[in-house]
């Protein structure tokens, strides 16, 4: 694509195909917010520093501002709303609510994604590993503590939604041994 021309792409956002014309430099974040109207994906900085725009893309949690929309052509992207039917995400969402981990809430969708990513790879992290796991996401309200509490409560199964759905059959590859060993914040656009 030359920089000015636009091309038609299709991205499967929460399993729904969304077709739109995009420019070469348009980010996945802009596509999600403006074309797919997935406003649960937030823009806190637009350059990979804050993590509010994290989504599940191609089996990885990424900062969507650092992915080009065109890169996602034909691929699947899940936001927190798309994962609401997954037991791990549902438990995390409920735990964030119960533990008081949400103040202004603007970082929450990205934090939930980071937490989801962490627990998927490392189901029983220590508090220090939880802090490491969310260190690519900024929060300015909570001081992080109740977010760590909320994630820990899910890991320790202290908080469980009684009628949570079963795990979704997501097209997510199982974590590799290398990923498991690292158990940190994966491939978040290198941020």
């Amino acid at each position, binding site marked *: 694509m030359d920089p000015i021309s636009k091309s038609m792409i299709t991205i499967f956002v929460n399993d729904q195909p969304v077709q739109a014309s995009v420019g070469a430099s348009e980010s996945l974040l802009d596509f999600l917010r403006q074309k797919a109207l997935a*406003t*649960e994906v*937030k*823009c*806190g*900085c*637009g*350059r990979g*520093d*804050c993590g*509010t725009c994290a989504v599940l893309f191609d089996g990885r949690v990424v900062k969507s501002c650092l992915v080009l929309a065109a890169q996602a052509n034909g691929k699947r992207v899940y*936001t*927190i*709303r798309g994962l*609401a039917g997954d037991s791990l995400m549902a438990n995390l*969402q*409920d735990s*964030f*609510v*119960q*533990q*008081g981990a*949400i*103040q*202004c*809430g*603007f*970082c*929450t*969708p990205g934090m*939930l994604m980071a937490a989801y990513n962490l627990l998927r790879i490392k189901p029983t992290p220590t*508090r220090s590993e*939880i*802090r*490491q796991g*969310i*260190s*690519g*996401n*900024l*929060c*300015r*309200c*909570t*001081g*992080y*503590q*109740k*977010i*760590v509490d909320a994630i820990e409560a899910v890991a320790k199964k202290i908080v469980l939604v009684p009628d949570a759905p079963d795990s979704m059959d997501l097209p997510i590859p199982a974590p590799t041994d290398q990923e498991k060993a690292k158990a940190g914040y994966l491939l978040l656009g290198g941020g």
Partner: protein
Amino acid sequence: MSDHVIGQRVPKYDAGPKASGLLQYADDFTLPGMLYGKVFRAKVPAAMLLDVRTERAKQLPGVHAVLTAKDVPNNNLRARFGQSTDVGSQFEGLYRVLAEKEVRYHGEPIALVAAESPELAEQACQLIEVDLQPLPGVFDPAQAMEPDSRQVGEKPNNIASHFKIRQGDVDHGFAQADVIVEGTYRVPYQDHAYLEPESGLAWCDDDGTINIRVSSQVIEHFREVAEILKLPHSKVRYLGTWIGGGFGGKEDITVESYLALLAWKTRKPVKLTYTRAESLLYHSKRHPFLMEYKTGATKDGKLVALQARLISDCGAYSALSPWVLLYATVNACGPYQIPNVKVDSYAVMTNTAITSAFRGFGAPQANFAYESQMQKLAQALGLDPLEFRQRNYLQTGEAFATGWIYPRAIPLTELAQKAWSGLGSRGLAEGGRKLGRGLAVGMGSYGRLTFLHDTSRSYVKLELDGSAIIRCGVPDVGGGQGHILCQIVAQELGISLDRIKLHITDSQLTPLAGTTTATRQLMMSGNATLKAANELKKRLLIKAGQLLNVPMENLIISENRVEVGSEPKEGVSLVEVINRLSAEGEELFVEAQFNAPFTDIPASEVLRGQTHPDFTFGAYAVEVEVDEQTGQVQINKIIAAFDVGKALNPAIVEGQIEGGCVQGVGYALFEDMAIDHGVIQTPSFAEYLLPTAVDVPDITVILVESGSGVGPYGAKGIGEPPMVMIAPALMNAIEDAVGVRIADLPVTAEKIRMALARKREGER
């Protein structure tokens, strides 16, 4: 009455919608045919603005408006910052919408664009041409105070505001002192760095009313926007959104005056959302202060004199600088009893970024200076820092240096001891690092200045099925400002939380509740809502008493029922009582107003008597490890102890303390806003570093409940105070670890390393 809802850790009203991603923030709203706004800004800090040419920008297809100062009906406002009483010019400043004739700071708005896409709006900005004649900038506030300095603003000199405290005779006091310590302290800019950048969407109704949906802490700015447009106040409406963080940065007008102008001119919906760089570079900051302190004490550890000179850099427009300066002045002596005091404070204009409200509002600046002084004095006297402070705490019934006799609890001895003992036994540092511990205490006000005669209103209505509706114009920044009203209504009227609907932050349809600033909403709107709920409760109990043939004093309301206290089985459902009242034509709604304590407007720059409704007191104890080679600081432990009056929802209260503490850790150690000749050099979070989850430890929060607050149920405000006293606690710990004291924040690793190098040099 039992605390079945008040005092409980119930989830916030807005937490579920936020966790699901369904709650909409300002930038999430769109309207058909919407245009995108963009602000064209000055790229120099000081200049004469000779001409602005917009023809080429206007000719770009898809551009609907390019506005400059001459298009603004009223471009120069006397900003009165929401106060309804006339408090004099000392507290007012110029709010200029778009630059005219001059540019006072880098980034000052010069023109506004509305276009069909953000890219087009950006392109149009690049076609705007300006003729500027650069002026020598004034960047140093101390120099700007000199009589021969170039005048930055509209005031006769660069001193925008000046306050004094005078008590006793400081010369006499210092003559009595056995030890006198002096210090010069510098505290920096700080950016609010809320994760949600400034954002709004405005449109024009068919009757010409301008509607602004905006992330704002102050929906009462509708009045100022109306004056900018020369419209009746009734023709501008704010529909606030749930705010993605405020901390004072969304207290002044942000995007809404620009949005209103563009929507009014184009008659189309217009959206304007700042980029992170625009937010970091161009919105207001915390005031840098230069503080010169001299404090004296006798050898038995009693303070006898304090003299201080505070200079704040208020930037190119005064914004809330006079208020912030007043708070800093009142806080200058801290919560200590000092017989001889002389404080002079100045807010000085320079050609730099606008500085205004930020959590703490002048208190963290003064606290860093006075608590550093207390530590130095304790060392000079050879006294334990806790013991020395304890000998000097103000006691209930004693007067602050302003002469206000404080009538409520000051449990600082208990707070400091609890925080300190919370550190436990002293361990050993690892890896060759040095371990240190520090403590600091302080106070933070809640409620606006008492001479502003602050009010809030709230409306509560019962539905026939026993559910309830609250309407209150309270903006919610995430601290539970809206939610807590539901807890109050649930407590008083026995209605479960899931049956209460809350409407907030609409300047025309919700009763005006005042600003979400100054840690005031729990006290103000909490009390207004409690008053409304109690009036409804009285009506319910009278009717239930008639139905049950029991005196109303014997009745309680609980879980959707009115019951006889001694015989819980005997009772009547709330629904039945409500329906009887309704059938008899009784009003099932109440709008109530709460008035804060009122005082007179200060007659001069000398501050006397009560200035604030109340203060919240707190203490931090911290343990750090410092690497002497790199200067790196690792925080091992933070213990926070605050008297919150009563914790209406402990999870929310802890969240305020934990969050305020970490924001203060950023202020103390990380957040280094580089600024060169008035130009900020840190436009992203890759340069302006905020604390992340790995930079801070778990914080142990100790809540003390004296019940002495002026909020509902004896609660005190807790939004801002946790920001106040963490920086000196950390500095005191770092000094304890490695023996160097840094007097200018932030205490970066580099500064520690250099101070250690100088110390080694001196020892050689």
